[in-house]
């Protein structure tokens, strides 16, 4: 296995020392870090979305910034702005909170489209232009955005093109009975301390390099493409299927999962287990899902299950 100092599984263990349950959330955050993408966490309030992001950022030990998205937020509040210095008679640049290794965009759908666009442009290009100068963002740069699907008053829905920028969208669900009991125990004396500096930025960059070298068999490649193509067939509830960006995302996340599990090859399980979080937010569903009261997750699952495993 690779020569990096700390394996990614150790980072997972340290985050689980703070977060009870939420296996999908913890795995999703780690995979986004390893694959070099951004993650959108969607779920009702109080399910440790923000805490999970904070725990990961603290464990990575990089520069962490949190921006609470509100309707009056401006793009300059996120990316930065130019300030005129009256003494020197020149403009100076004040860099915004986006210049961080881990940026937590809390309740991303509460900010208007222009702020979302400024952020998502940075997510894609990994650089920000303020005035005439472009500034490269730190590497690694991971955006973890949270979204509450219940309070839709005063929110701005993320356009499909912007949703597509997120490598994966994890739906956060309520903990089980047993997990809730553990939460009661663990948080009885207040919030437990976050794991700090478990890994370094160099470790993260080494994981990324290693993940890109993970072997992907031709049969697995065909399986990935077949799953994505299954979303483009004519379907009662689908208006538009996933783009080739989804194919690339599924492949890179499958490699990241293999690395997380200590393998240097990808299995069909890696692809199948991630297909839902990669495809769910990239598909455009039509009105019939509402009129027929069909759960979107069930449609995605059905599409994935229609593809034979190699």
């Amino acid at each position, binding site marked *: 296995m690779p020569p990096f100092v700390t394996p990614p599984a150790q980072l997972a263990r340290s985050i689980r020392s703070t977060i009870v349950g939420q296996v999908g959330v913890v795995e999703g955050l780690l995979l986004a870090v390893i694959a070099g993408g951004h993650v959108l966490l969607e779920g009702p309030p109080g399910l440790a979305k923000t805490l999970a992001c904070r725990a990961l950022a603290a464990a990575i030990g990089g520069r962490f910034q949190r921006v609470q998205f509100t309707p009056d937020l401006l793009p300059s509040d996120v990316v930065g702005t130019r300030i005129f210095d009256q003494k020197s008679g020149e403009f100076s640049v004040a860099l915004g909170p986006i210049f961080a290794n881990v940026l937590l965009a809390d309740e991303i759908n509460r900010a208007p489209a222009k702020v979302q666009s400024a952020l998502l442009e940075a997510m894609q290009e990994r650089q920000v232009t303020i005035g005439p100068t472009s500034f490269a963002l730190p590497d690694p740069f991971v955006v973890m955005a949270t979204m509450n699907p219940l309070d839709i008053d005063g929110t701005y829905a993320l356009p499909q093109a912007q949703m597509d920028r997120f490598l994966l969208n994890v739906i956060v669900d309520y903990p089980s009975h047993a997990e809730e009991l553990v939460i009661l125990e663990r948080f009885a004396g207040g919030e437990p301390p976050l794991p700090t500096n478990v890994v370094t930025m160099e470790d993260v960059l080494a994981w990324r390099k290693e993940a890109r070298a993970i*072997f992907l*068999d031709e*049969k*697995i490649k065909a399986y990935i493409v077949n799953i994505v193509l299954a979303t483009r067939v004519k379907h009662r509830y689908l208006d538009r299927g996933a783009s080739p960006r989804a194919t690339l995302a599924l492949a890179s996340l499958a490699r990241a999962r293999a690395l997380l599990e200590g393998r*240097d*090859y*990808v*299995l*069909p*399980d890696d692809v*199948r*287990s991630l297909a839902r979080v990669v495809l769910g937010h990239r598909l455009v569903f039509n009105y019939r899902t509402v009129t027929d009261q069909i759960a979107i997750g069930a449609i995605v699952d059905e599409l994935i*299950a*229609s*593809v*034979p*495993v190699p």
Partner: protein
Amino acid sequence: MAAFWKGRLFICTEAGGVLQHLAISVLTMSLDRATVTVGQPFHLKIHAHIHQRISRLDNLTLPDLVAFTELSDERHLTPGRHAGTEYNETLTLQANDAGTISIPPVSIDAFNTQDPEQRPSRFSSTESLVVHVLPRTRAPSDLLPSRWWWEMLLAGVAGVGALILAGWLALRTLRHFRKPSPAELSESAPAPTRSYELGQLAPAQRLRQAVTLLERAPSIAQAEEVRLALRAIVGAQEAETLEDVLNRIPEPGRATWEQALRAAERAVFIEVSQRPAAILEALPYFERACTLLEE
């Protein structure tokens, strides 16, 4: 005296009823479709808003609907949201003949309470409605064979299908009981040509034969055959991954099956240059699975 009685005389309608004291602010009539075919049902809706709270509405005169067959007539009087009464009537009609038919306005006779002298008035919807009735066209369903024919056809197809299935099952059962000959076991034909033959064997025989061939001549194709045989034994469906299968394997022998299946997956999906070594490492697990099955 005569003037006194004149003011208090009940004014009777043609039907003999007494006019109500009403203030009607809305009286409308509408159609849910303006063009229909002969025999096609459509709805004529009448709506009135009356300022008073009333429990019945008398003296509503429907337009002449002689050109139509009345299929149903639903009337509802409901209290208005703030005050007054809402009257809604829905007539379901059917045109008898093609052509353009005009439906004259609907009217209500009552003492108008908005008139200072409360004189009898005729409230009326403003305009006539026009229905375009097209000749009856043959419905697409009429062009199709009758239900009896469909049922007969389905019964025939089902019968033929059942016969084919029964024959296939009988053939399959006979082949399962046939023991493979020594010649078959020692045959070292390439894996792709074996795969069909292996498919005819019982699961245990299929796995044993695939493992024997893999031990004799390790190859990627043969490793894939072993993986397929293992999946068949644990009842893996086409769309199921290893994790799906492992979730339902019962406890006796579970560890053996899990090790064999994981070893098979590794041998098949690991980087090509590492596969020979992965196959050799997997053989003991395959052997253990065969032994467990044969026991």
